[in-house]
C-alpha cells in the first residue's frame, strides 16, 4: 500500500537496527517516514527508540494499531499519528500527510512555506515571492532539511551525515560553504533565517 502511494518502503525488524539498509548493501538515505506495524505493546518503546536515534530523530512516525491496542492507553501518543487497521490507501495517505505536517510543517500539497519562501517537495522547486530560485541538488537538500526542522540547531557533522550522508573531500567546511551559497541565492531577506549558532552549527529561524 505504501508503494501505491509513491513511497519505496524498506522493512526493518523492531528488535534490530531501525536504520534501513540501502539498495547496494550500504545504508539507505534518511527515510521520509517511519511506519510501525504489528508492534502491539512494543510500539511505544519503538517510537522512543526512533525519536532518540541520532539519524532518525526527526522522522515522522505513524503507528498502525488494532482496535484492541487502543486500550493500551495514552502512551501511544509517542507516535505523531495513529491509524487503526484495517484501513484504506486514502486514509493512510491522509494520516501520513498529517504526521508530516505536524513534524515538518509540510502542507497537503507537499509545499513547505516560510513567509514568502516556498519549497515544493514534489517538484524540487524553490520560489521567493513567486520567483524561481535555482539551486544545485545539495543546496536544495540542505535548505529542505533546515526548513523542515525549524528552530532546531544542527552541528556541521550532523548536517553532513543527514544531508550529504557520506564524507567526501569537502569535509565539514562543506556545510559552511553550502550555507553561504544558499544564503546568497535566497537574497537578504530570507538569508538571515539560516542562523549561525556559535560553537554549534546552524538553525532555521521560522
Amino acid at each position, binding site marked *: 500500500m505504501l508503494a501505491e502511494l509513491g513511497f519505496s518502503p524498506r522493512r526493518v525488524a523492531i528488535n534490530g537496527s531501525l536504520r534501513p539498509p540501502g*539498495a547496494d548493501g550500504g545504508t539507505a*538515505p534518511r527515510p521520509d517516514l517511519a511506519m510501525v506495524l504489528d508492534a502491539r505493546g512494543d510500539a511505544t518503546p519503538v517510537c522512543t527508540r526512533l525519536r532518540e536515534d541520532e539519524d532518525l530523530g526527526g522522522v515522522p512516525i505513524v503507528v498502525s494499531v488494532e482496535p484492541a491496542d487502543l486500550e493500551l492507553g495514552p502512551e501511544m501518543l509517542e507516535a505523531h499519528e495513529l491509524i487503526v487497521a484495517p484501513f484504506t490507501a486514502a486514509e493512510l495517505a491522509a494520516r501520513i500527510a498529517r504526521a508530516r505536517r505536524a513534524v515538518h510543517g509540510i502542507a497537503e500539497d507537499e509545499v513547505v512555506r516560510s513567509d514568502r519562501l516556498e519549497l515544493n517537495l514534489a517538484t*524540487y522547486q524553490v520560489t521567493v515571492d513567486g520567483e524561481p530560485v535555482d539551486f*544545485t541538488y545539495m543546496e536544495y537538500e540542505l535548505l529542505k532539511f533546515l526548513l523542515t526542522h525549524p528552530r532546531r540547531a544542527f552541528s556541521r557533522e550532523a548536517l553532513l551525515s543527514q544531508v550529504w*550522508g*557520506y564524507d567526501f573531500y*569537502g569535509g*565539514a567546511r562543506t556545510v559552511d*560553504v553550502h550555507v553561504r*551559497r544558499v544564503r546568497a541565492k535566497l537574497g537578504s531577506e530570507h538569508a538571515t533565517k539560516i542562523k549561525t549558532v556559535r560553537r554549534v552549527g546552524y538553525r532555521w529561524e521560522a
Partner: protein
Amino acid sequence: MPTDTDLTLSNRDYVMRTVEERGVRFVRLWFVDVLGMLKSIAIPVTELETVLEDGVGLDGSALEGGARLAERDVIAYPDPRTFQVLPWHPTSIAARMLCDVRLPDGTPFPGDSRHALRRVLTQAAEIGLTMQVGAEIEFFLFEEETDPSKPPVPLDRGTYFDLTPLDDGSDFRRRTIEYLEQMGIPVKASHHEVAPSQHEIKLAHTDALSMADAVTTFKLAVKEVAREQDVFATFMPKPLEHESGSGMHVHLSLFEGERNVFFDPEEGPLSATGRAFLAGVLAHARELTAVTNQWVNSYKRLAGGFEAPEYVSWTRHARSALVRVPSSRPDREAAARIELRSPDSACNPYLCFALVLAAGLRGIERGYQLGGETGDEPLPGARALPEDLREAVTLFESSELVREVLGDRMCDWYVRNKRREWDEYRKTVTEFERSRYLRAL
C-alpha cells in the same frame, strides 16, 4: 547513510525534474582542455536522460589544447551535482553541467584536468586533509574595438578602491556579482583595482574542486556581462605595458575535520604543518610556474614590478613576495592561511590547485624546512622565478613532482602546447624591435 549510487540517482532525478519545471530548453555540457579553456556541447533536453546515463561521445583531442595530433574517442559524463540554470539566458532558459571525461573503457581520460585535481584531493583525503581555496581575480574592461592592432582603450581613469563617477565598472561588478550569486558562487568583496578599468572580485573560499569550477564559471560570467554592456573583458595577464597586470591571488588553508591545521596561536603565524606545507610550495614553485603562469604574456606581468612576485620568497608584511602569510588576525583559526601571489587569472585553475596542493603535501610528508622570511628586498641567494615561458616549460617538463601529479600523457600534451606557443612567439617581430632597430641599424 545514503550511498554514492543513491545520491547519483536522486541527483539525476533532481536534474530531470528541474529541467521540466523550469522549462529548460538546452543543457550545456562543459569541460576544459589542458590549458583550462572552457568547451561546451549543447544538448536538447530530450537527450538529457540518455546523456546522464551514458554520457556523450566526443573527440578527446579537443582537450589537448591547440596542439592536437590525432582524434581519439572519449566520453564526457555530466556531473549532476554541478547542474545549474544559467542566469544570463532570460528568454530561452539554459543550464550547464560540468563533465568528467573518460575513455571508452571507463577509465579517466589522462587529459581531464578536473580528474587530475580530484586525484590529488582524494590523496589528501586519504590522510584526512581537505584544502580550502579562496581566489582574488583581477581583470580589465576595455571599449569594444574590433581592430586588434590598436591599443585597448580603458573605460575609466579610476584607481584603487575608487568609486563613481570615475569608476564606470561598479555597475558592471554589481551585475557580475548578481550572476555569480545566482549560480551559487558567493563573492566576498569587489573593488576597482590600481590600473584604469581594472577590477578585482574576491570569491569566498570553498573546497578546491568547487573553486576551480567557480573560477571557470566566473570568467564566462564576466565575459557575458561585458557582452551585455557592449564592452570587452580580458583576463590577459599584462594587457597594458605601463600598468599593473591581472593576477589571481590564491588563498590556501588545510583542514582536518573542522580544524585548520595551519593554525597555531602559540607558534604563529603558521603551525609546524603550515610551515612544512609552505616550504613545499616554495621548493617546487619554479617547476609549477609553467602552470600558474602559462602564457608568453604571463611573464611580462612577473617582470614588470607593480608588486608582482619575481623571486621565490615568503613574507608577512613585504609587498612583492611569492607567498604572503596574512597575520592581521593571529587569533582567528579561520584566518590562518597562505596567499600564493604568482598565478594569473588566465591559468588552468584545476591544474594550478592540483600542483600547488601536491607541492604543499610533499612538504608535509617529507618534512621540508621553511627558509627565512623576506623583507622588501629579496634575500641573498633567493631563487628567481622563470623569466619566460621557455625556461618555465623546461623546469616543468623535468619536474618529477609534476609528472607524478599530472601523469606523463597530460604533461606531454601540456608541454607540446607551450613549446608551440613559444616557437610562434620567437618568430614574431615586435614593436620593441621595430622602434629600436628599424632606423638605427
